Every structure is written in structure tokens, then in C-alpha cells.
């Protein structure tokens, strides 16, 4: 299996605070990777660096063997990385159809969009179960729907790698199951590599093939879900303070 993404000695400092400190890992093409860790561990900051929203203080990020750290977000998106945001971002005034179309148009900009482009958008709407809402204005929808729309829009950009930041936060178990199926489909049928940041353990355990654990900006563990779940360092990181009072 080839490596699609490699992170080498990645560091990010914000005025003296090491949000991410010396993180290394590689991602094989086609896997589902999870990144977990207590709040403030540096997960979103890492995502932001991969996606180009932040410039690393030092270190290298390589995507498909090309160096991408420090590039602008739109360039990184054009190279094949898609992402969703932790606090949902959306084009509030657009309809669902227009929203997903924006993702498609961004990667195939034409004065008059081709019929195939509209069809591609339809396909994604079908796949993500949004077809019925196509003409609804996004700002009128709940957060759960807006998350799905964000995911659909990211899919419309035809990514090879998808970064999902707490996609499942606040969803009911039913919604989580549906989304898990969707993610498995995206990964297995469409071949998109997934990196998922999550707090919902069910999701991590069921979805991910490999997990990386961060704490205070450092990588403290890596392995299969089972290995990580039984790793005493990981357990302490999550339960640390409580164990002291126990």
C-alpha cells in the first residue's frame, strides 16, 4: 500500500504554547485513520496544518509525495484533500443543491456548468440522502443537516483524502449509524482515504482501522483500536485527573 500522507516532526507554536509538538505519522492510501485525544490535544490544529489553514512552525507534510506544508488552503484542496470543520461552516444563503454544486464548480470552473456536473451533484445528493432537500435554503436546516451538507460539498470536490473534524458531535445514535455507513461507503466504494477526529468512542472503534492518540500536542500512542483501548498511557491521558482523585 502506498503512502498518501506523511507528517514529519510537525510543530505548531502559538506564542509560547506548543499546540502540536513533534508529531510524526504516515497514512496509507485507502485506510480509515482516527485521531483522538483529550480536548486541547492538538487534533484540530493538526488538521488545520494539513489543510493549509495554518502554517506549521516547523516540520514537513507530504501529500502524494509532494510537500504541502505552508500552501494555501485552496491549492491543497485542488491537490485532492477535502475537509470539514469542527464548528460547521456553510454557505447559509444557498440552497442545498447550490451548496454542493459550489464544491463541484470549485474544481471544474466553467462559465456554463456542464450537464455532467449537475449530474454529479445529483449523485452526491442521493448518496448523502439530501436529494429531498435540494431546494431548501441551508440556513433553515438543523446543524445535523448542515454537517451532512458540508460533507457532501467536500465530496463534490473529488478528494482523495478527506479530513473529518468531529463530524458526529451532537448526533443521535441513529444518525451516527447512518453516517458511519456513509463513511464506510465513501472509503470502500469510492476509495477515499479518511482521517477522522472524534470524541465519540463508538465511532472510533467501529470505523477506524488505525488510531493515533495525541495529548498536549504530542503523539503518545498509535495502533489498532484494540491496542489503543488497552494502552495504559492512553487510559491515563483520558482519565488522568480523575484517577488522582479516585
Amino acid at each position, binding site marked *: 500500500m502506498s503512502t498518501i500522507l506523511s507528517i514529519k516532526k510537525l510543530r505548531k507554536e502559538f506564542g509560547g504554547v506548543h499546540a502540536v509538538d513533534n508529531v510524526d505519522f504516515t497514512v496509507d492510501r485507502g485506510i480509515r485513520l482516527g485521531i483522538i485525544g483529550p480536548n486541547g490535544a492538538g487534533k484540530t490544529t493538526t488538521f488545520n496544518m494539513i489543510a493549509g489553514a495554518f502554517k506549521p512552525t516547523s516540520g514537513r507534510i507530504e501529500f502524494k509525495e509532494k510537500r504541502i506544508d505552508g500552501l494555501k488552503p*485552496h491549492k491543497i484542496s485542488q491537490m485532492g484533500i477535502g475537509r470539514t470543520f469542527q464548528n460547521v461552516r456553510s454557505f447559509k*444563503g444557498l440552497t442545498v443543491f447550490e451548496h454542493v454544486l459550489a464544491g463541484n464548480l470549485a474544481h471544474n470552473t466553467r462559465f456554463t456548468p456542464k450537464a455532467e456536473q449537475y449530474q454529479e451533484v445529483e449523485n452526491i445528493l442521493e448518496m448523502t440522502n439530501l436529494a429531498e432537500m435540494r431546494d431548501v435554503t441551508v440556513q433553515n436546516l438543523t446543524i445535523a443537516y448542515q454537517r451532512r451538507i458540508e460533507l457532501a460539498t467536500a465530496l463534490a470536490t473529488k478528494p482523495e483524502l478527506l479530513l473529518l473534524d468531529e463530524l458526529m458531535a451532537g448526533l443521535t445514535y441513529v444518525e451516527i449509524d447512518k453516517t458511519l455507513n456513509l463513511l464506510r461507503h465513501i472509503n470502500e466504494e469510492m476509495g477515499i482515504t479518511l482521517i477522522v477526529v472524534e470524541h465519540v468512542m463508538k465511532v472510533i472503534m467501529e470505523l477506524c482501522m488505525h488510531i493515533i492518540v495525541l495529548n498536549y500536542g504530542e503523539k503518545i500512542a498509535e495502533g489498532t483500536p484494540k491496542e489503543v483501548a488497552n494502552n495504559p498511557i492512553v487510559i491515563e491521558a483520558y482519565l488522568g485527573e480523575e484517577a488522582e482523585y479516585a
Partner: protein
Amino acid sequence: MRNMSNKTDLVGKSPRATIKVKSRSLIIIGVVLIILAVIPQIASDYIIYVATIAMLYAVLAGSYDLTTGYTGPLTFCHGAFYGVGAYTSALLTLKAGFPFWVAFPISGIMVFFFGMIVGYPALRLKGHYFAVTTFFFAHFIYLVILNSQGLTNGPLGLRNISPPESILGISFKSLQSSYYLIFVFGIAAVVFLYFLVNSGIGKILVSIRENDELAEAIGINTSFYKVLAFSIGAGIAGLTGSLFAHFFRLLHPTTFAWMTSEMVVIMAIVGGLGTLFGPIIGAGVVTLILELMRFAPELRFIIWSVALIAVLIIEPGGLMGIAGRIRGGKK
């Protein structure tokens, strides 16, 4: 700057990404066009002048909407681009001996590139800095025009600008024929803007307005498109300025002082940002009322400042926003 992430605060409650011109609106547009077409045949010279000003401002407001309404950044220098276009065209014909039909496109292209040179660095500015800078820029252009005595005659202004030369046997010396030239230009400009705004490019611009960060994250080069919209808007303003110069045949720096930019902003907001036709209608309404009140000049500007504030309080989406509310909004 927490205030600045929200660029949709000036768009009405039911913003539209695509303008669908419905049959009802088509009828209204048709009526307006017929009235405009007929004016030179039946109305007095004075009314012809007013209608010309209205059409020129309509194009200014529409092109302004491309940047501020559709893409997002608030600018206060549209009047400056108008002025640069006017003076460029006038000087090309007066001092360099170019015919109007060459000076006209050159003005547009020059102001387009001028907009690009200004926009590229300026659009990187965060928060309110960009808007404030455009305000300064407009004032600065006015200073330059005022002080380049050798070139622009400064406060004395430029006179004896020639009308467009005859083409295809049509002479533009008369008031009526000049009017029709501007009328045709106005239609062409609006049609161009309409197709641009409804195209794939237009949708990308709207995405940038709706959420700059997300647009960037899905692969849109937001800097490029912001500069593009700004430059196209500037270029159209430049072309409009050229027509102004050759219609009124004299130019004076105060015509392009910051108040002109301010009036364009007022027209666009009163009409409704982000709707193309809103600012155009706004231009018509404001010009009309300004003329009705011509006997009290200072009162006119006071009324419009108050009107702008009233619009911001009641319905920031302007007239189009009110129309949207009446129609019940999108569910």
C-alpha cells in the same frame, strides 16, 4: 475581529444566489425600457439629462454590486474609478488625438488594470482596513485629479470634450443620439452583468461572500476572484466614466469627490445588495428623487444619509429585501 466574518448582514432575509427573472419582472423591465427608449422623443432636454444620469448611475451601482454585493468586500471608491475613466477618456481624445471609439475601450481596460493593481494588495487587508483604505483611496484620487494641473487643468476642469465620432452613418452630436448610445451601453452592461452573475463564476463569487473560509477550503482561490470582481467592476465604472465625459463634454474634479462613491453605495444598499437589479432600481429611485429635490441641494444629501440609516435599521436588504419579505421569503 468578530464583526467581520459576517458578510451577509447586508443581504436581505431571503438572499438569492441566482436571479430568476420571472415573467412578472420581465414585464416591468419591458415597461421601463420602453419608457427610457421613448423619453428623447417626447420629453424636454432637462428630463433627457436626468434620465442619462440615472442610466449612468444604474450601471455604476450594478457594477458596484459585483464586488460588494456578490463577492462581499465593502468598498467606497467606485466613484474614483468612474472619475479615472472619465478623465482618461477625455485626455486621450483631447490631448492624444485618439478617436472616442478607441479611447472608450482603452479607458475601460486601463481602469480594469488599475483596479487590479489596487485590489491585489488591498484585498489582503483584514477587518475594516480594506473598506477604510478604499475610502482613503477615493480621496487620494480626487487629490491627484485636482492637483495635476498640467494634465487635468485641476479645479478649472476640462472643457470642449468632443462627442463620439459618427459611426455607421449615425452622428452623435445631438442630445438624443448621445442618449441612445448610453441607453444601448446600459443595456449591454446590465446584460453582461446578469450573465456573469448567473454563471458558474457568479456562483463562486456568491460562495465567497457567504463564507470566505469555506470557499477557500473547497478549492476556490478567493484572492483571485475577489480581485477579479473588483477589477471588472472598476473596468465597467471606467467605461461609464468615458461615456459621461463625452456626453456632458466637460469634467470637473468635484464630480468625482468622495460623495459620488458614497451615493453609489447608498443607491446599491437602498436597492438591495447582491441582487443586481436592486442597485439598478436603487440608482433610478435615488436619481429621480434627487432631481425632484434639486431646489434644496444640501437637503438632498441629508435626506439620503437619513434614508440610508433608515434602510439599515428597517431592512438592510433594501427594496429587494422588502419585496422578498412581501413575497413571503423562501421556506
